[in-house]
């Protein structure tokens, strides 16, 4: 294997899940490289294994073949920290104690972990809510806690699994701007799974398009829209061109996924 300066190297990763009487191939030979400090977005139709790919990188799912390497040069910090789609906070812990959780598990002392947690809470704008419990927060605030929890661990790579999918449109827009600001501040390497092309274009340096099941890399699109990027990018001609280009590819995969769900050859197969 070549020596590369990549932060994350994914090589020929395959994952199968036992299904109802048959095995489901979730990922089939995925290879990816993520550069240090890059914001990489992964899009694809439902069931293309986007979340599975992220879980493999996080070490939560063991691949059947292939390998994942993450360049870690700082001892004592975890390789990855994940922001989960449904926030997945511990309901019995306060906001502060949720953010310190990872540090606590690694044996970081109370004073230090609380200082770091407060720093991250300040970054996501939740300083005043440190003593509340998750059920007392709105969806957007919970997801901010999820982001602070991941960042407090100072991971090599930040993994985000459709973190804004369950939020309403306005909250999502605000959170997208916040993410851009945080990323610009911390310079983290990010792998970001989303089903929204618009979101991927706003956030990402590159967009990886996965195929319908089994998940393979269909194409990789560089997003050359400049930085710093804000919502106004959506009005630029280059944005429209790129959106159209990626969407025409994604559309094919989505239609293929829909056919698959209907058990193969449906009327859709004839019409496409």
């Amino acid at each position, binding site marked *: 294997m070549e020596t590369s300066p990549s932060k994350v190297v994914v090589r020929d990763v395959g994952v199968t899940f036992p299904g109802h009487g048959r095995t489901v191939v979730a990922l089939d030979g995925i290879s990816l490289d993520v550069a240090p400090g890059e914001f990489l977005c992964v899009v694809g139709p439902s069931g293309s294994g986007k979340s599975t790919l992220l879980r493999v990188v996080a070490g939560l799912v063991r691949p059947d073949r292939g390998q994942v390497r993450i360049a870690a040069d700082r001892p004592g910090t975890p390789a990855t920290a994940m922001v989960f789609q449904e926030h997945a906070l511990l309901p019995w812990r306060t906001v502060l104690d949720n953010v310190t959780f*990872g540090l606590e598990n690694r044996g970081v002392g109370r004073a230090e972990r609380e200082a770091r947690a407060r720093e991250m809470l300040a970054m996501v704008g939740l300083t005043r809510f440190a003593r509340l419990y998750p059920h007392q927060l709105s969806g957007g605030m919970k997801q901010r806690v999820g982001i602070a929890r991941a960042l407090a661990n100072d991971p090599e790579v930040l993994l985000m699994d459709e973190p804004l999918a369950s939020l309403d449109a306005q909250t999502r827009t605000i959170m997208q701007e916040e993410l851009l600001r945080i990323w610009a501040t911390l310079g983290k390497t990010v792998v970001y799974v989303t089903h929204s092309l618009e979101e991927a274009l706003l956030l990402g340096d590159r967009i990886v398009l996965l195929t319908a099941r089994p998940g393979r890399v269909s194409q990789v699109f560089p997003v050359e829209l400049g930085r710093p990027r804000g919502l106004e990018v959506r009005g630029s001609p280059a944005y429209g061109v790129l959106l159209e280009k990626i969407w025409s590819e994604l559309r094919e995969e989505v239609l293929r996924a829909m056919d698959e769900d209907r058990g193969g050859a449906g009327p859709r197969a004839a019409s496409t």
Partner: protein
Amino acid sequence: MPRWLTDHGIAVVSPVLLVAGWEWASATGVLREALFPRPTTVARHLGQLVTDGTLERHTATTLVRIAWAFAVSAVLGVATGLAMGSWRRLREALDPVFAVVYPIPSVLFLPLVSFLVPAGEVAVVITTAVTSFFLVALTTMHGVRQIDPLVVEAATHYGARGWRLFTAVLLPGALPSVFTGLRLGLGYALIVVIAVEIVAAGRGLGAFLWLSWQVLKVEDMYAAFLVVAVLGAALSYGLAALRARLLPWVQDVAER
């Protein structure tokens, strides 16, 4: 009118109406006063029983039995439930046993228990504890099982493994159900201890109630009824209040 009264007034009005109706029915002969004495008569009689110490003696006896039975069933039940919830093998091994033993009415364990330990306080306590134990264990087990797998995955991802996963995730995650189980278990302990006292004890509220009925001292009987009812309500509300105090993170059903 204060807001509390408009919201919960009906909860006050209905029992008051019930007692008033009973008073009226007994006074006018709709109910035979010899069998259904007026609530005011029962209240006066209750005062006497309290003053002469009779009620206190029986209540204390019953409460001590409940306390022991509850303590035993809570400790063993929570431990068993947590183990069954966390360890699939154990759950599969014990499930059929629970399925068969759990529905047996607890009083029926009394003869069995009396073969194992000498009849007396210990036998009463063990018999009372049996049903509570199953309730607490089963509810606790389900408490562990219903924890959101995504929360467990996230906790694992953030480094909670083994014992740490148990104490930081599985145990707190199961606690709301544990409290539900304890509340049910305590309620059943009261039911069962009264039943056991009726068949096998000379003292305690159950024995007192039963004796009062047999010799038709109906005022005594109703006084004992009242104490048992108040005891049940007090124990149940006490545990609910404790839960609200100890688990501030549990959201009310209304908030969901």
